[in-house]
């Protein structure tokens, strides 16, 4: 019992000192007051928290020092690992496989079909969800269960950087977050400046999965990546994930054909052979059909810049030899 009290005091001190060092002056007096009260009461159940507005525009009471976070999407898990804050992570979703250690954490179901009971059993002090990925029903249910839930909305590169900064702030990893974002920014700018030298913008068809033929329209981050990498997305348009027939692809005549899939080796060879029949497609004729790791392209994480660089080397191999 005394150890518990001591640790609680130490914890209070830690937060207090950190507040002091970072000169969070507008909350300093308040913190001091609370610290004083909890020193005298020594109640370990007292958790300090702050009202925040998440990227969904909701008001959330986020604990000052969250220690039991449940991440509700693989991308959020990746961001937390990138911030070196994985010790705070107590639960992840199925397919949280990057980095490899992430898959060792307890799973709470897939991000579209979450198991509420498992989430609650992990006693989270904070859940982090994505607006587009997780069903809104889950967010409502967790709210009703009084579990703080912070919703992020990283739908393009700029917003991904904001999300990283935002999560970094919650996890007290501001510096690390800033470093990651600066690195991303630098690499994006490098690609941008190299693309400027490109003589033309090849037509790119980006296929999501092997079948059916689904591509990415203008309101997606895939479109953004293709454009940044110096390509022209042939499936641009208002529909986020348009479907196509083989005929339509023949007419669109893409110069480069990219399939984002989990397929490797033999399966990949089969997909390539299937497309090899359509010699009229420039991408097939010039042997520019590629398969890329869908996890790299689907997940809004710092690794999306890796995806951008990969895409740029595929679209403009000459320009980007130096990057390799």
């Amino acid at each position, binding site marked *: 019992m005394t150890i518990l009290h001591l640790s609680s005091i130490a914890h209070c001190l830690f937060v207090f000192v950190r507040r002091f060092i970072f000169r969070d002056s507008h909350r300093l007096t308040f913190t001091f007051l609370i610290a004083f009260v909890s020193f005298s009461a020594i109640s370990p159940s007292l958790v300090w928290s702050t009202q925040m507005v998440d990227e969904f525009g909701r008001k959330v009471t986020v604990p000052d020092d969250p220690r039991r976070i449940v991440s509700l999407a693989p991308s959020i898990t990746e961001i937390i690992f990138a911030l070196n804050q994985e010790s705070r992570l107590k639960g992840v979703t*199925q397919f949280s496989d990057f980095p490899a250690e992430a898959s060792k954490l307890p*799973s709470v*179901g*897939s991000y*579209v*079909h979450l*198991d*509420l*009971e*498992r989430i*609650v*059993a992990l*006693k989270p002090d904070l859940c982090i969800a994505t607006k*587009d*990925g997780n*069903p809104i*029903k*889950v967010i409502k*249910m967790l709210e*009703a*269960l009084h579990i703080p839930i912070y919703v992020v909305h990283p739908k393009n590169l700029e917003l991904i950087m904001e999300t990283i900064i935002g999560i970094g702030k919650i996890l007290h990893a501001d510096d690390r977050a800033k470093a990651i974002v600066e690195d991303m920014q630098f690499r994006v700018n490098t690609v941008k400046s190299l693309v400027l030298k490109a003589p033309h913008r090849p037509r790119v068809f980006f296929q999501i999965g092997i079948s059916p033929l689904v591509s990415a329209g203008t309101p997606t981050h895939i479109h953004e990546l293709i454009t940044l990498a110096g390509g022209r997305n042939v499936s641009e348009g208002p*529909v*986020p*994930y*348009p479907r196509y027939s083989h005929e339509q692809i023949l007419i669109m005549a893409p110069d480069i054909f990219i399939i984002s899939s989990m397929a490797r080796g033999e399966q990949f060879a089969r997909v390539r052979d299937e497309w090899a029949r359509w010699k009229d497609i420039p991408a097939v004729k010039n042997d520019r059909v590629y398969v890329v790791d869908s996890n790299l392209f689907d997940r809004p994480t710092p690794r999306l810049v890796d995806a951008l660089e990969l895409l740029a080397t595929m679209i403009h191999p000459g320009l980007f030899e130096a990057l390799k």
Partner: protein
Amino acid sequence: MERSVLLKRILWTVILLSVLLAASILLGILMGSTGIGIKRALLSLTSSRENDPMLHTIIWQIRFPRVLLAALVGAALSMGGLVFQALLRNPLAEPYILGISSGSGIGAIIGILAGLSRFPGVSFTAFAGSIVTLLLLFLMSSGKAILKSNSLLLSGVMVNSFCAAFIMFLISITQDARLHNIIFWLMGDLSMINLGQVGILAAILTPCFFLLFCFSNQMNLLLVGKEMAQSMGVNIRIVVPMLLLITSLMVSATVSFCGPIGFVGLVMPHLLRLIFGPDHRVLAPACILGGGTYMVFCDLLARTVPDQGEMPAGVITAMIGAPLFIILLKRSGR
């Protein structure tokens, strides 16, 4: 004299099945995907919230509403099966097989895609869908050429495939995140429910159960044949449409909350008829309680069998129900 015997039988049936239902509900809230021991859960039931707030939340706010929902849905679907079997004088009739569930499914999906709320929006479109399919069904099977009882079943199968195709069409034109929700919902999904929603469903279903129980003697007479029933004082023009309307309302209410769950209305009335005999005055309460028990068990299996996540409850009911349907079909052919 006979009346008191009947009352006694009803009373004993209700007591027996209530005990079973209560036991299944207890088991349902004690077991779950987290693998917390039954002993610890039992302890938490008897002690106050402060002892184990996490488990308390899991039991009362996640498992309890869900188990209640399962019981209500099972009761409604079993009653639906019982009524259709009496009305059509066909032991194989059931809301799912007849296509009523899929019909209200179409209505519900249209409601979901239109962004309506679960209640009253989606419930209403689901109800409209089930009424339209019901009318279609009767139109199709009421011609002179097809008066045999199996013709209605065949019409039902066709209505079902048409509805399935239409649902697939709606799914194929949906392009966003709602798709996953719809697909899980289509397989019969009982998760993500709160007590308020269960309350709404209970408020819709309880009067339906009561009314159907009041009609149970008429159902007995209808089994003998419509003309016979009429001569024995059953007002067919009122009773039959009333029964159909109430059943559609019940089925569409359950469908709008948890998707089309099949074969419950086939399995339970049969089983209970074997045990308690053919009298609907006993069968009606038996179906309500027994159907609830069955569904709670199916949902429990759906929650605890898979290692990762959970299965939709509709998968379990179909796996038990479809083989039984074939067995019954073979038997009725003899």
